[in-house]
């Protein structure tokens, strides 16, 4: 039953939504604003908001000092690679758990999630030693593997939830019509699962893009992604906020734009199955 919503109530809701939205976006907005200030303006007290001499100096300095495109390329490869690799494993895993569950499926799911409960630093040294052994330190392939493993439980969980929503009767009907396993997956399941798959992919790209523990600890010069690029602009002795903000803005810009374009998918994917 639809509730009648008054105009007053509607505008109040809009107001609240905008306020919360702006609050959440404020740190990013402030970072972007700071990136156009001088170092002195960046730390001015009281803070300057919009009326200052906007300068591109910080971007120029950052461009000059760091090889941005190399960091960016590394981020793309690592985030994209780990997501693709992860999906190759997660889709069949989630499929089998959703459609051919065994007695232990629930336990397996929970066990997979439990690996996320261990603080990452707890396994830093074992992984570091394994990486030394296999020559994976400071390589993109090494990072891709680690990020894939870290995000795998989330991928499987998300996909499992989506697949569970697909009624088994549809698959039965397809089988009755003579579809084999291959046809069933390709023509029946995939089209229905695409929104779920898409939002899982997006979320994992974002998670991998922002991952700052392993990407900092397992890289040096060659495979370092944008997280390392940002970390290089903090200084123990000297002012750095404006340049750090410029570097941060450059690092988050690609993922922010991707997020904007895929907003619909993301929201749909994240709220999928929330209302039953």
């Amino acid at each position: 039953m639809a509730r009648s919503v008054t105009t007053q109530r509607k505008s109040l809701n809009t107001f609240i939504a905008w306020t919360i939205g702006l609050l959440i976006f404020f740190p990013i907005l402030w970072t972007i604003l700071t990136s156009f200030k001088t170092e002195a303006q960046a730390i001015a007290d009281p803070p300057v908001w919009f009326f200052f001499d906007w300068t591109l100096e910080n971007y120029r300095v950052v461009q000059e000092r760091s090889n941005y495109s190399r960091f960016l390329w590394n981020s793309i490869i690592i985030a994209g690679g780990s997501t693709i690799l992860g999906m190759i494993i997660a889709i069949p895993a989630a499929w089998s758990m959703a459609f051919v569950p065994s007695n232990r499926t629930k336990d397996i799911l929970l066990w997979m999630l439990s690996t996320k409960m261990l603080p990452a630093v707890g396994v830093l040294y074992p992984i570091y030693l394994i990486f030394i052994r296999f020559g994976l330190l400071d390589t993109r392939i090494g990072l891709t593997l680690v990020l894939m493993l870290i995000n795998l439980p989330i991928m499987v969980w998300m996909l499992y939830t989506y697949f569970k929503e697909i009624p088994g009767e549809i698959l039965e009907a397809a089988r009755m019509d003579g579809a084999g396993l291959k046809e069933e997956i390709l023509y029946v399941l995939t089209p229905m699962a695409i929104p779920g798959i898409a939002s899982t992919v997006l979320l994992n790209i974002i998670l991998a893009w922002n991952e700052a523990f392993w990407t900092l600890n397992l890289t040096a010069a060659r495979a370092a992604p944008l997280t390392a690029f940002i970390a290089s602009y903090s200084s123990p002795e000297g002012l750095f906020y404006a340049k750090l903000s410029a570097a941060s803005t450059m690092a988050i810009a690609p993922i922010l734009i991707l997020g904007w374009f895929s907003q619909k998918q993301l929201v749909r994917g994240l709220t999928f199955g929330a209302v039953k």
Partner: protein
Amino acid sequence: MRLGKSLVASTALALIAASGAYAQTLTIATVNNGDMIRMQALSGAFTEATGINLEWVILEENILRQRVTQDIATSGGQFDVMTIGMYEAPIWAERGWLVSLDDLPEDYDIDDILPAMRAGLSHEGTLYAAPFYGESSMVMYRTDLMEAAGLEMPEEPTWDDIAEAAAAMTDRDNNINGICIRGRAGWGENMAFITTVANSFGARWFNEDWEAQLDSPEWLEAVTFYNDLLQNYGPPGAANNGFNENLTLFQQGRCGMWIDATVAASFVTNPSDSTVADSVGFALAPNKDGLDKRANWLWAWALAIPAGTQQEEAAMEFINWATSKDYLELVAEREGWANVPPGSRSSLYENPEYAEVPFADMTLRSINAADPNNPTVDPVPYVGIQFVAIPEWAGIGTQVGQEFSAMVAGQQTPEQALARAQALVTDEMEAAGY
């Protein structure tokens, strides 16, 4: 099946590509300080002369420290040259983690390195890290405010002089604080400063049997004095202020005095960032009336070679270049004498052109006043002035730093902070087997 094969093939390819040929490329880990960034910008000259390529890994100080420790402890071999501090150098050298720098060529003139720096970066008389730039601490004060208050800052002030000047310059209505000093918790933040105050009041961290001494009357006097200074004449929210926050306050004209690293002198006298650039004076770090130990610290950012690097020779060549007399000349030529990395070599301070830099003389005197082997009035079993050069220090210093930061925030008294610190240090040291 096809998918499987191509996966294997592409993985193999990627592995081969990743481990490709990097014949003569050095990987250098460093921090984002002005002098290091300048070195990076000028390093084209090194590559041109030697044909050795350089890859730079610039990280935030704490990340760098953790990253480098982890790599060196596991022989990861990620770095050929690393930037380390005076705290790490003797500890890592003792563990055999660093290559000794005895093999630097004759014309490097190792004896030109300032004695205090050399002592702090050596282990059993052998140099393990070459100072890239060094610092002590000193008093920076506003000459205009002092004049307005009718006071004159002696070149060698006592703590009483500092307290008097702080009281005279504090002007809450105009948002001017008599003194800005570190309050933020951290072994390299507030503990660096507080330890030097304690040293100058005759306190020490440990007696010769490694027993914690924070329950001594000297500690209480030092910490009470520090706390009173900040409560009465310090800026609001001082418990969160570290080097950069105080630098900002000073540059904006909010501090009468600032006692901190000598390298700050070049920032506060730089007219493009500082509103008080032409009215800053310098004085030696204070002592307590009747004691001749000054509250100087000593620190160096130094370049070292991790044991186990495949490119020891090239790394040595780089260190030779970056910490040489010629490098100082190169910076002077390109960027002016005020931008030359300070505090590493005696010859720099004999140079008449460098002597014209306003803070050159006081920097040298401050560094020379520091003695890492005899940091306190009473004898101690450790080296290090504003730190104790043992592996446990980073943890102890940070925890005790939190107690003092809470004290500055008004959450506990100096007596309570010291009692908790004493208990905490005693426990930690016992657990570490001292």
